[in-house]
C-alpha cells in the first residue's frame, strides 16, 4: 500500500479526471470512489485531495460549481472541462502503453491475473 501510494502522486490527476469525466462529483465523493474502486489500495485525505482539485481548476482542467439540491446544503461539484477531457484522453493512452510495457518486462501477460 505504501508503494502504491508513492505511485499515485503522478497519476493522481489522471484518477481525478477519470472520475469526473462524465459527471460532476464533490470532493468527498471523489476521495471515497478512489478508495472504493482501488479496494482501499489508494487513499486521498482531504489535505492532499483539495490542493489537487484547486490546482486542476486553476489550470482549467476541471470546473467547480456550488450546487444546491433540495433538502441539502450547497456543495461544490467538480467536473472535467473540455481541456481536462483532452488531457485525460492523452494520459490514458500513455498509461496503457506504460502498463503494457511493464507487463511485458515483468512477465505478467494479463494484468488481471497478476492481481
Amino acid at each position, binding site marked *: 500500500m505504501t508503494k502504491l501510494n508513492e505511485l499515485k502522486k503522478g497519476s493522481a490527476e489522471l484518477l481525478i479526471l477519470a472520475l469526473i469525466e462524465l*459527471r*460532476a*462529483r*464533490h*470532493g*468527498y465523493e471523489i*476521495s*471515497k470512489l478512489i478508495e472504493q474502486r482501488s479496494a482501499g489500495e489508494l487513499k486521498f*485525505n*482531504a*489535505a*492532499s485531495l*483539495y*490542493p489537487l482539485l*484547486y*490546482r486542476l*481548476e*486553476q489550470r482549467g482542467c476541471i*470546473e*467547480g*460549481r*456550488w*450546487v*444546491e*439540491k433540495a433538502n441539502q*446544503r*450547497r*456543495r*461544490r*461539484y*467538480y*467536473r472535467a472541462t473540455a481541456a481536462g477531457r483532452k488531457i485525460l484522453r492523452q494520459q490514458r493512452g500513455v498509461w496503457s502503453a506504460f502498463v503494457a510495457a511493464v507487463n511485458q518486462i515483468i512477465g505478467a501477460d494479463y494484468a488481471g491475473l497478476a492481481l
Partner: protein
Amino acid sequence: MPDWRSEISRTFAPLHLSPSREAWVVTELEQHLEQHYADLLAQGISEAEARSTALAGLDNHDLLRELRNLPKDEITVHPGQAGAGFWDELGLDIHFAFRMLGKDPGFAAMAILTLAIGFGANTAIFSLLNTVLLRPLYPNIQRLLVLEDVPLSARKQKLNMNYKMSYPIYLSWKEQKDIFESVSAITAQGPSLTGMGEPERLQAAFVSSDLLPTLGISPMLGRGFRPEDEPYSAPPVVLLTAGFWRSHFNSDRGVLGRKLTLNDQPFTIIGVLPESAQLVSFTGVLFDIVEPLREAPESAVLGFNHLFVIAKLRPGLTQANALQAIQSRVLAVNKNFSRERDIQVIPLEFYLTSEAKPLVLILFGAVAVVLLITCANTANLLLARGAARDKEMAIRVALGARRARLVRQLLTESLLISVFGGALGLFGMWMTQTWLSKLLADRLPPGIHVQVNASVFMFTLGLVVGVGTIFGVLPSLQGRSKALRERLSQGGKLSARPVSHRVRNVLVVCEIAFSLALLAAAGLLLRSFVRLMNVDKGFDADHVLTLRIWPSPTRYADPQKYIAYVNAILQRTRALPGVKAAGWASCLPVSGSCITGDFEIEGRPSNSHNMIMGAKQLVSGDYFRAMHVRLLSGRFFNEHDKTDSAPVAIVDQAFAEQYFGHENPIGKHIDFGWGGNAFAEIVGVVGEVKESLAERANPTVYVPLAQRPAVVGQLAFSLAVRTAYEPNEAARSVRDAIHQTDSTQIIEAVQAMDEVVDKSVSSRRAPLWLFGGFSGIAAFLAAIGIYGVITFYVAQRREEIGTRMALGAQRNDILRLIMSHAGKLIAAGIAGGLIVTLLAVRALQSLLYGTKPYDGPTLLVICVLLSANAFLACGVPVFRATRVDPQVVLRNE
C-alpha cells in the same frame, strides 16, 4: 458532532484568506470532514478515534500552500442538478418557465393569444409588403418601361387612363435600337378551346417573341417563341402555362408537338412555362396559354390601340437620359404616320405597384399599431405578474441569486411566451393566406399572393425575439435587487410599486389612443363605402342578368354572319317569359373595361391639341332599356338602325357637356372611327353611366353594333337582360336560348348586375374588412388592458375601500372613486387618440370616397363607442369593489 468549522478556521488563520474565499474552502472541507467522520462512525469506530482520523486528513502543508494560490471565484448558487453547464441551465430555465406558465394558464393563454394576433397580423401584411414592394418582380426591372401612345390632349387634361399602342407605332419604336435593348408587346384575348371535352374560353396572352426573355421567363419544357413564329402566315404554335398544363394535360411531359384547337384552328404545343412565370397583365387575369403575337392584317392597323408595350433600356442608360432620347424620337415617329401623338413613359415597377403601394403601406402602418397595442397589453400583463412575483424574486436574491441569473430566467419566460405567440400567429396566417390573397386580389398586381416564405419567416422571428427580449428585460429593470430585498424585509407583502403603476396607466392610455385611431380609420372607410354604394350609378342594377360571349372568330369571320348571330340570340332571349328587355353592349357599366379613343365632330377642324376623347361603346337591341339608362333627349337606337341605314350615334351627358357645351348635340355629326368612314348623326343624349363607382363618368359615345361590322369580331359582347323575376333564375333559359342558336357557343361571366356592381367595389371592401378587423382587435385588447388595470387598482384599494365603507361611505361613493380613476384613463386615451387620428388619418385619403379624413360625426361615434366599450370593461372590477365587506377587510388588517 465535533465543530469542524472552528478546527478548520484555526488551521487557516495564518493564511489571512479573503472572507469569501475562506468561507468557500472552510465549507467545502467541513463537509468533507463531516461526511468522513460519519462514515467512520458507521464502520463502528469510536467517536474520539473517528474525530482524530478525520482531522488527520487536514494535516498537510500542501493544502496551505495551494490555498495561497487559489483562483478567484465568487460563491454563486446554482439551483438544481450538479454541474449545470450553459445548456443544462438553459434546459432548466425552459423547464422552469414552462412550469411557471403552467401555474398561471390564464395569464399564459392571454399573453400568447394577444401576441399571436399581433404577430400574425404583422406577418401577413409584411408578406404583402415583401411580395409587392421589396422583392423585384422581374430581373432588371429598373430598366423596364411601359410605353403608351397618348393623344396630346391627354397630358393637358390629366386624364388618368391607360393607353395602349397600335401595331405600326409599336414597330417604329422597336426600331429605336440605340435606346432600347428590346421593345416587346403583349395583348390578351379569349380564344375558345374545343376538342377537349366541354368547349371552354381560355385566357390567352399574345406576346412578341422577345417578351419572355425580357421578363426573364424561359420555358421549363420545350422552346420559347422565335421571330419566325410571329408572321400571320407562320404555323400557329402555343405555350402552356404550368397551371393549364396541370389541369388539362395532367403534367404530361409528352405534350410537346400535340395540337390544341383554338378558335377552330389547330395550334402546336411547343413548350410549357414554369410555375413561377408571371406575365405582366394589364387586364388583371391569369393566362392559360401564351401565343406569339401574330397580328392579323385587319388588326395591324394604325389607330387600333390594343398592344401593351414594354421596352427594355440599353444597359448603362439612366431612365432620365432615356426619357430625353425617347421624347426626341416622338416627332420622327409621328411624321412617318402624319399624325400628332405623344408618348407616355412609365417605369414598369411603378406601373405594377403604384396602386397597391399606398394600400400596403397604410395596412402596414395599421398592423404596426396593432402590434404596439398587443405589446402594451402584454407589457401590462407582465407588469401585473411582475408585481405578484416580487416576493419570489426577493427570496431568490436573498438566497444569493445574481441579478443576471434572474434576468435570464425572466427572459426565458418571456421568450417562451413570445415564441408560442409567434408560432400561433404564423400558423394563423398560414391558415388564412388564401383568404387574404383573395380579399386583396383586386388591389395587388396579378399573380402576387400573401405567402409565407423565408424572409417572412425571418421577419416574424425577428419580431418574436425582439418583443420577447424587451419584455423579459423590462420588468427586471424596474425590480432592482436592493429594493427587492427591502421589500422582503417588509414582510413580503404584495404592494404596488408606484413606478409600475404609473407605467401601466400610461400603457392603457396608449392602447385606448391607438385603438381610437384604428377605429376612426375603419369608421371612415365604412362611411365612404356606404356613400359609394348609394352613389347615382346612372343605371339600375336590380333584376338584370348579364353574361358575356365571344363568338368564334373563325366561324363568324364574316361580320354579317356575326351580326345575324347576335341578333338571333337577342330574338330568342326577348321571347322568353319574364324578359322585359334585352340588349348587347361591348362593355358593361362599372366593369371598367371600356375602350377609350378619339372622335371627330363635323365642322370642327381636327385639332390634335384639343382632341375629343371618350369611351366607345357598341350596343344593340334594348340595351338602354334593359339597364334603365335615362334618355335625356332625342331617341334610343331602334330596329331601323341597321348596317346599311344612315349611321347614328348616342352621346352621354358628360360627352355633351364637355364637347358641345350649351349647344344641342342632337342632329350634329360625329366620326366614331372603327371602320365607319361616314359621320354619324347624334340622335340621342343619355344619362351618365359610371364606369367605376368612385370616378366621374367618362364621356361616352354609343353606336349600333350593326353599323361597325369591321370591329365586331375583335370584341366580346355582354348581354344585359332585364327580368321580371330573380335574374339568376333566368340564367338557365337564357343559356338555352343561346345554345339553340349555336350549341358550341361559350357563355361566361353569367351573373346578376348586382354582383357585377358588388365585385367592382371589392377593392374597397378589402381595406374596410382589414381595418374593421384590426380595429376590432385593438378595441378588444384595449378593453382587456383597462380591465386589468382597474382590477389591480381595486385589489390594491380593498383596505381603503373597506375602511371608507366602515366609516360610512356608500356604494355610490365607492363607485365614484373607481369610475373617476377609470374615467381619467379613458379620457386621456380618447384625447391622445384624437391627436393620433388627426395626424395619421390623412394617409387614408386615397382610400376614401366622398368623405373627408376629418369627419366629425364619424369621430364622435367612434369616441362614444370606444368609451362605452372601456367603461363596460371596468364593470366587473367595479362591481367587485362595491361588494367589499368592510368587516372582512378590516379583520385581515
